[in-house]
């Protein structure tokens, strides 16, 4: 509890001590954290592999962008709209996905992510999606005359939604739904025998997971102020997978570690070469699968457990 409060306090101080550009980067990290949390519910807790969450990220981003650009909807109202659209899209995609297990689901979602940019470019949709050019958005100003610049305001806006989504996820995961998800992942036949409606829980998980990712997409579109088909290629989905694996599967805090990783490591690596971030992502992926399958969150948990045990031992000794 104290740790959470301290992290929150630090997060609130952040925009006042770093530059605007850094604030923008942290905003994106928060956006990724929401998306990773969504993917982690599906893959980490429910055991359904998705290589296509970039598609839901894109749907969320486009929902927000089209609403703002075409219909003049205020930016904050696009978030719930994106959530609803992605919840439905995810639920609908989850229905056929029910019949697919493991590898095949990965295949189907991979196909979705690869073909989505082509769909977004489709010329009959161009009047809404803007075709290849995409849509340019305006950055919102701080409301109520708050003494914040747009970057700072957007950071706080995103932070508030992130906190909300994390609390929601925490509640879902420790409740009936969360236990059902884990039960299905570990032993789906036993889970069914216990009276869990497997099909419903799996599709709902897919829907909720897509909803998280869609909200992240909408926030990302508002922060970057631009959406275009080619920025939502398969590598967005792969990046989310990287974040989940490196942050830690089946862990809420893992989403934050993973988000910081995928946001800031490429920045550092970019200095070496344009291709370096992805090479590093790939090598880290391999390394984590081989030696640290529980990700950073797992390593932190282990370290904390070891330290507290040591402290207890020392307290007991004399």
């Amino acid at each position, binding site marked *: 509890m104290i740790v959470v409060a301290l992290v929150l306090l630090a997060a609130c101080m952040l925009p006042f001590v770093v530059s605007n550009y850094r604030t923008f980067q942290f905003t994106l990290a928060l956006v990724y954290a929401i998306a990773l949390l969504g993917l982690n519910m599906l893959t980490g807790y429910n055991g359904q592999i998705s*290589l296509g969450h970039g598609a839901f990220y894109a749907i969320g981003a486009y929902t927000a962008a089209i609403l703002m650009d075409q219909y003049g909807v205020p930016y904050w109202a696009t978030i719930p709209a994106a959530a609803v659209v992605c919840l439905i899209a995810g639920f609908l995609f989850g229905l056929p996905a029910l019949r697919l297990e493991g590898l*095949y689901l*990965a295949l*189907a979602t991979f196909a*979705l992510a690869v*073909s989505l940019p082509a769909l977004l*470019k489709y010329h009959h949709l161009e009047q809404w999606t803007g075709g290849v050019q995409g849509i340019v958005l305006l950055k919102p100003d701080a409301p109520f005359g708050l003494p914040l610049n747009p970057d700072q305001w957007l950071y706080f806006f995103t932070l508030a939604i992130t906190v909300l989504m994390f609390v929601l996820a925490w509640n879902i995961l420790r409740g009936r739904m969360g236990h059902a998800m884990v039960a299905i992942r570990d032993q789906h036949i036993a889970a069914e025998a216990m009276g869990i409606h497997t099909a419903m829980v799996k599709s709902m998980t897919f829907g909720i997971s897509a909803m998280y990712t869609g909200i992240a997409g909408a926030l990302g579109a508002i922060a970057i102020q631009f959406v275009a088909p080619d920025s939502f290629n398969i590598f967005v989905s792969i990046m989310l997978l990287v974040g989940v694996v490196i942050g830690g599967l089946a862990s809420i805090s893992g989403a934050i570690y993973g988000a910081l990783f995928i946001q800031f490591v490429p920045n550092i690596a970019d200095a070496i070469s344009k291709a370096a971030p992805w090479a590093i992502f790939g090598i880290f992926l391999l390394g984590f699968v081989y030696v640290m399958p529980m990700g950073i969150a797992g390593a932190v948990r282990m370290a904390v457990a070891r330290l507290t045990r040591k402290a207890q031992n020392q307290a007991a000794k004399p």
Partner: protein
Amino acid sequence: MQELLHQVLAGLATGGIYASLALALVMIYQATHLVNFAQGEMAMFATYLAWSLINAGMPYWPAFLLTVVLAFVLGVVIERVIIRPVENAPVLAVVVVFIALLVILNSVTGWIYSYTIKSFPSPFPAEPIFGQYVTSHQGGAIGVTLVVLLLLFLFFRYTPLGLAMRAAAQNPDSARLVGIRVGWMLALGWGLAAAVGGVAGMMVAPIVFLDPNMMGGVLLYAFAAALVGGIDNPAGAVFGGFLVGVLENLLGAFVIGNELKLAVALVLIIGVLVVKPSGFFGKVLVTRV
């Protein structure tokens, strides 16, 4: 009518390329029950090797053969070094390893060769030799595909090594008991798959041009082809490849337009997986609970 014929023949040409890559996928699936997401990037990397060799002044066909050998070695090394440690790991770990491989090959290629698009030579003459309906590269690609398929068929059907590899894939435990080194057979399977993929890459490169992301769409069609034919059936994969090639071209030309071509693959993949997961010729899998 002429237009239709032209589209069908063009579809057969690209279909042959999909068939090769689908065959590579099926070979790995049969041996390990895994779908290799990095197959396309392995083929892409091999194609870049071929490009280097040709640019270094080597004539096309020697470069072609050398690339096939190099791709084979690359496949064996990848299996031994990267795939081996996760052989019995959960599906998620394996998928993540494949994705890591995809990303590494893609970025390393981009690093070495830069992301600018390069043209890749075709070994076949520029003027059509098969009449007006089909360019000679298309005809040649179909020919090369058929030769590769024939060689593979002969290898698996009539050589002791091919038999050993089939045995290792079908029943690893019994194969091990009669003295087949199953691990190495898997590595050889990966090598062969990489070599076949390399051929597919070199055949498709003159059409789509050479760039590190060139195989994304092709891989998707190959997935669709493998699934349509039944993911555990090599002949089915070949059939599926040609079918997907023709279907893609016809739908693209007459029904939905070129932009939505990739969606055909998506619909096929999801449709087959949901309606008939074993495809046209696959074995229906029954699991005991």
